[in-house]
């Protein structure tokens, strides 16, 4: 009697046990319930939490199709052994936290990624480490997700053999916060990604761009640091981008820019610091864009603005110790320059309102010559060139006559403490 009653109740017991608990912890480890991650995921249900012990798990092709959380203890390492992808997320509401993923193979037919997120919503990747991967985090056709506080390091050696740190394709409302990315092709790559926010990332020593935007409207990026990348940061074919409080630094090289703008419109570039770049901002086909309150310091060219840029506004910036402040390839000027501080300005201020009484021409004859024929740079700072520039300043004939700052500031506009990062 007693036994039969027990048998009767057992399924009910089990049912209650499994479904009533909101989240169950599933432990994975060498001396735990599950030895490998795949079987743990197979035996989990929505809402479960998989906790991975310290150790190296040589596995790949993990597919997460349930709404679960995967988190690692101190050093849980997934080693894909250069065979295939580590984790593919095909479900919404997934969180991956605190695990290390390494050795994702280079693929020419397929973009192998450390963590791939496909057609999902509300996925969070945080505090993970990615070492020696082709692509680290790859989001495709996903919405409302977060990539937070990850450390991503690759060892890319050539552009064609390397992938991107964080790659977004056709995404909406993604937060990319506080990540460190280095040694990939592009640090962060966005294509058809809209309404995304990129904050506080540190992207350095990537082969091509620290950040690369293509066809991505309405995004903003703030407080990021882009340092020593092959070609700086590129923002292309995009409207309504907000770029504020970023630091663009040490991007040196034959085709290297702090910030490259190509076919951008209605964007705002505020409060940024451009320091020691070959070219601070290279602007091509940029329209209705506002460049305000930035500091350009010790660059080769502070701003290279080509003739096809119209209706841009460049105001309240500080130009300090640049070899060339503004250079252009056109006789005409359709952009508006006003109230900037130019360290080369040698006009006077009789009424002491801190606005110079004489307009300032930020382009020089020599900078125009160099745009037309780069080899002429050999004569930079020679006596002859300084004589040329002086005569051209007095009577402009080659440089665009309307390219003037009519209210040059006598004092620096932005007092921003330069932040030192290790």
């Amino acid at each position, binding site marked *: 009697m007693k036994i039969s009653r027990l048998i009767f109740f057992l399924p009910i017991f089990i049912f209650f046990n499994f479904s009533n608990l909101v989240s169950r912890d599933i432990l994975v480890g060498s001396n735990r319930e599950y030895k490998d991650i795949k079987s743990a995921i197979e035996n989990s249900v929505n809402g479960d939490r998989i906790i991975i012990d310290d150790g190296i798990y040589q596995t790949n092709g993990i597919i997460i199709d349930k709404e679960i959380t995967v988190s690692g203890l101190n050093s849980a390492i997934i080693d894909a052994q250069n065979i295939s992808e580590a984790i593919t997320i095909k479900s919404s509401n997934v969180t991956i936290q605190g695990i290390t993923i390494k050795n994702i193979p280079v693929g020419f037919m397929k973009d192998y990624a450390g963590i791939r997120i496909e057609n999902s919503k509300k996925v969070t990747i945080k505090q993970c480490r990615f070492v020696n991967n082709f692509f680290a985090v790859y989001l495709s056709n996903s919405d409302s997700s977060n990539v937070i506080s990850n450390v991503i390091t690759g060892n890319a050696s050539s552009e064609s053999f390397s992938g991107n740190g964080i790659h977004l394709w056709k995404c909406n409302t993604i937060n990319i916060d506080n990540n460190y990315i280095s040694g990939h092709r592009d640090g962060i790559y966005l294509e058809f990604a809209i309404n995304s926010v990129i904050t506080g990332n540190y992207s350095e020593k990537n082969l091509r761009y620290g950040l690369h935007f293509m066809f991505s409207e309405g995004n903003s990026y703030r407080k990021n640091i882009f340092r020593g990348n092959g070609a700086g940061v590129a923002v292309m074919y995009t409207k309504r981008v907000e770029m504020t409080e970023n630091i663009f630094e040490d991007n040196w090289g034959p085709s290297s820019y702090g910030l490259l703008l190509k076919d951008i419109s209605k964007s705002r570039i505020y409060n940024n610091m451009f320091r020691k770049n070959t070219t601070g901002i290279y602007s091509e086909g940029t329209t209705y864009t506002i460049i305000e309150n930035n500091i350009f310091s010790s660059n080769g060219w502070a701003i290279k603005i080509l003739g096809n840029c119209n209706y841009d506004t460049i105001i309240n910036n500080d130009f300090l110790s640049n070899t060339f402040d503004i250079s252009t390839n056109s006789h005409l000027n359709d952009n508006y320059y006003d109230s900037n501080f130019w360290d080369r300005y040698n006009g006077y201020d009789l009424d002491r309102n801190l606005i110079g009484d004489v307009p300032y021409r930020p382009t020089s004859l020599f900078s125009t010559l160099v745009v037309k024929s780069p080899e002429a*740079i050999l004569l930079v700072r020679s006596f*002859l060139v300084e004589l040329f520039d002086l005569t051209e300043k007095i009577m402009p004939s080659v440089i665009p006559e309307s390219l003037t700052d009519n209210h040059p500031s006598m004092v620096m506009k932005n007092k921003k403490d330069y932040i030192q990062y290790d």
Partner: protein
Amino acid sequence: MNNNLRIIKFIIIDIIKNKWLTTYTLFLLILTSVIILFSNDSNKAIISLTNVVLILIPLITVTFTSMHYYNSKEFIQMLLTQPIERKSVFIAEFSSLSISLTMAFLIGVILPLIFNGFSILILYMIISGTMLSLIFCAFSILISISFDEKIKGVGVSIFLWLFFSVIYDGIVLYIYFAFNSYPLENIVLFLTALNPVDISRILILLKLEISSLMGYTGANLQNILGNKTGLLLSLSVLVIWALTPFIIALKKFNKKNF
């Protein structure tokens, strides 16, 4: 040799007594200190000083040397009547002039710079300043020996300065634009490196404004001149520039009918 040193000592004392050298040194000292004191950006100070080194120093060297030669012509003739080799007289004149001019440069420009903090740039400044002093001193003596008239000699010396600091660059720029459709990077680089003033400028700028000099030509330049071999290469160009006029002048002096 003992004779040589004695003559050098005598001429140097004569130069110092002349007060022009002291004025020159003081002028450089004040100029450099003012530039360092009044520019809050050390890079900018170095750029201004580069102009001083590249333009002012050759100009003053050229005028001072030829003036001194013409003024002490009678003294040289007197020396030549003594049983002293012509060679020793020439070497004494050249070395005392170049030693005192180089010392003036080192005290006037380098000393304040060192007080302001040492960097590798100062080394490059020392190299280019000293070499430019030597080169223009040698050229100026050569010109002075070639022309007996003082006005002509000083005029040609100043023209030489003008040629190296302005006209030569103009010619290079003209060549560049006239043959713009041909690949000229290396030729222009070569032509520029032939001018002692230009090569000194590029040496300093490569250390200073690396970012603007990048670009294709910049990278090329950095490859050729930016390393130790480049430094040696440009140094040897400068040494050749100093030696050639010196040797020609020595030969002329030996054969000259005073």
